[in-house]
């Protein structure tokens, strides 16, 4: 009953975020293909950002950018989650970049993206 609780509709964003998080997590964990893993990672991160954004968003308010000098706090949504999302995006971008670069290296070496196959090769190399 938790799922279809009273504020099921109003919290739709969070639920979606959770589902996405699960999907991403599962991909990152279970996919053999490295690229798909990375995609999973990105899904996971984005779901978190969605979650944060949902948290920060307040019905009927503006993005926290001061235009035509309205200083009133109540006109804007909560800026901190947005800040967090920005930071998070930075982090995830860098991580993704790193992962991709690693993948490229591995691919150059072994011409495959399958991690298990790679480790099998490595065993053969006896390194």
């Amino acid at each position, binding site marked *: 009953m938790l799922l279809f609780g009273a504020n099921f509709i109003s919290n739709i964003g969070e639920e979606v975020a959770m589902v996405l998080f699960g999907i991403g997590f599962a991909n990152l964990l279970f996919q053999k293909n490295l690229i798909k893993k990375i995609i999973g990672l990105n899904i996971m991160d984005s779901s*978190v950002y969605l979650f944060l954004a949902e948290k920060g968003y307040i019905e009927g308010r503006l993005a926290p950018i001061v235009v035509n000098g309205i200083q009133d706090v109540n006109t804007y949504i909560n800026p901190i989650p947005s800040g*967090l999302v920005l930071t998070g995006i930075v982090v995830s971008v860098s991580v993704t970049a790193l992962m991709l670069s690693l993948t490229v290296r591995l691919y150059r070496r072994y011409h495959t993206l399958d991690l298990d196959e790679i480790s099998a090769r490595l065993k053969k190399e006896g*390194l």
Partner: protein
Amino acid sequence: MAFVQNVPFFSIILSMFSGIVSSVLPEKQAKWLNTAVITLVGAMSAWLLSYLLEVGGSFTFMMGHFPAPWGNEIRAGALEALMALIFSIIMLLSLLGGRKKLKDEVEITKHNIYYILTDLLLSSLLALIYTNDLFTAYVFVEINTISACGLIMIRQNGRTIEAAVRYMIMSLLGSGLLLMGICMLYDLTGHLLMSNIKESVQQIMAEGSYRVPMLITIGLITVGLSIKSALFPFHAWLPDAYGYSTVSSAAMLSSLVSKGYIFLLIKIFYRVIGIDIIRNSNILNVLFVFGLCAMIFGSVSAIWENDIRRMISFSSVAQIGYIYMGFGLGTEAGMVASVFHILMHAATKSMLFISAIGLTDVSNGSRHFAELTGSGYRNKIAGIGFTVGSLSMVGIPCFAGFVSKILFAQAAVANNAPVKIFPTVIVLAISTILNAVYFLKTVIRIYVPEDPAFEKQQGYLFFQISRQKLYGLTIICFIALNLVLGMMSQPIVHIIEIGLQNFS
């Protein structure tokens, strides 16, 4: 505000900027800069520590003059200072010890990258230690991960890259969970500064609302961090990562990186959620069980290894198990024991890695036991280092290992939950036996003399202290550190106790 209170901030910023600067420096200067910075950080932490012991208590340091809850804060207490001190010492020693090996294994152009990564690692570790802000903590966790990954793959071969990928994947899973947890916490409390979060968490708990979300949050954070610190079921990435990277990296990874996460977890327990709530939730029992499993499993798989580096790595799994078992005891004493074990293991494990490399070097770089026969004579200093490390791991009195063993056992015995007494002490004893099995097996092996003719024919080279003064010096420092931890443990334990009291 006393000037010394700037130390935490300075040390973080200093190491970060030195990293940035060294990107434009040539390799040699980068090396010196890095060494200098680490030494400086160590010295400053020592100063801070003495100051904090003098005045007692702790202080928070506002960054950019924004007051809470908007600003970002740094908090320093005795325990943090101690951690920073020991970490920087160990980092310095591991770098010095592995320097020659680094020359051989990593091409010269990559060296200043290596030092950049080290600087970043140091800064992120310091940040993890000092920060008072959860999201900052998350960011630095990621930085930590990235730099660690870099340290692994700096040595170019298939193994290391594969290890790096595995490491990345696992720790990204971990940090994903951590991030989720943090977000939910933020959702629940609306704060990011630890102290504020704690207040509101206390409130929520007092009201008795949001029990399930809170539990989930605790679970997410704990699991995330324990994945990153390679607790038993999530340790698959560890042996490769530690076993094949260049030795300084291995030493630093095993002794510092994972410990940084664990320390963060402790901070979250004490300063974010509040230890009482944690104790009331069952999370500690889960950690306890996994810790015990790790203690046994790690040692067993270490026994089956016949590659010295991987063996040491597996022993790390067991040691991490000790730490979590200490958490699981759920008492102050258990926590103290765990923290001391963090220090002890950091000191000992890095020494083991460094001396193991010395042994393999005089055996044509082979890491298999068969070839290691008699290497203790070919490289005396490394042999001694390894022996001391092993004895400390087995828990012979006078060495650091013994103290933490005693602390754990005492904590277990004094535990008010009698269910945990016997499992703990028995498993402690058993894992001692297992440690003895694999470590002393190696010690005996390296001290069984190989016959000279064979050595000549193999072309084993002998270690001259005159050619590697630095290496010898490092090992000696490590041994000294170990003995200090072993024989003058009382003040250190005292500091830890104070620090933990300041936490809550």
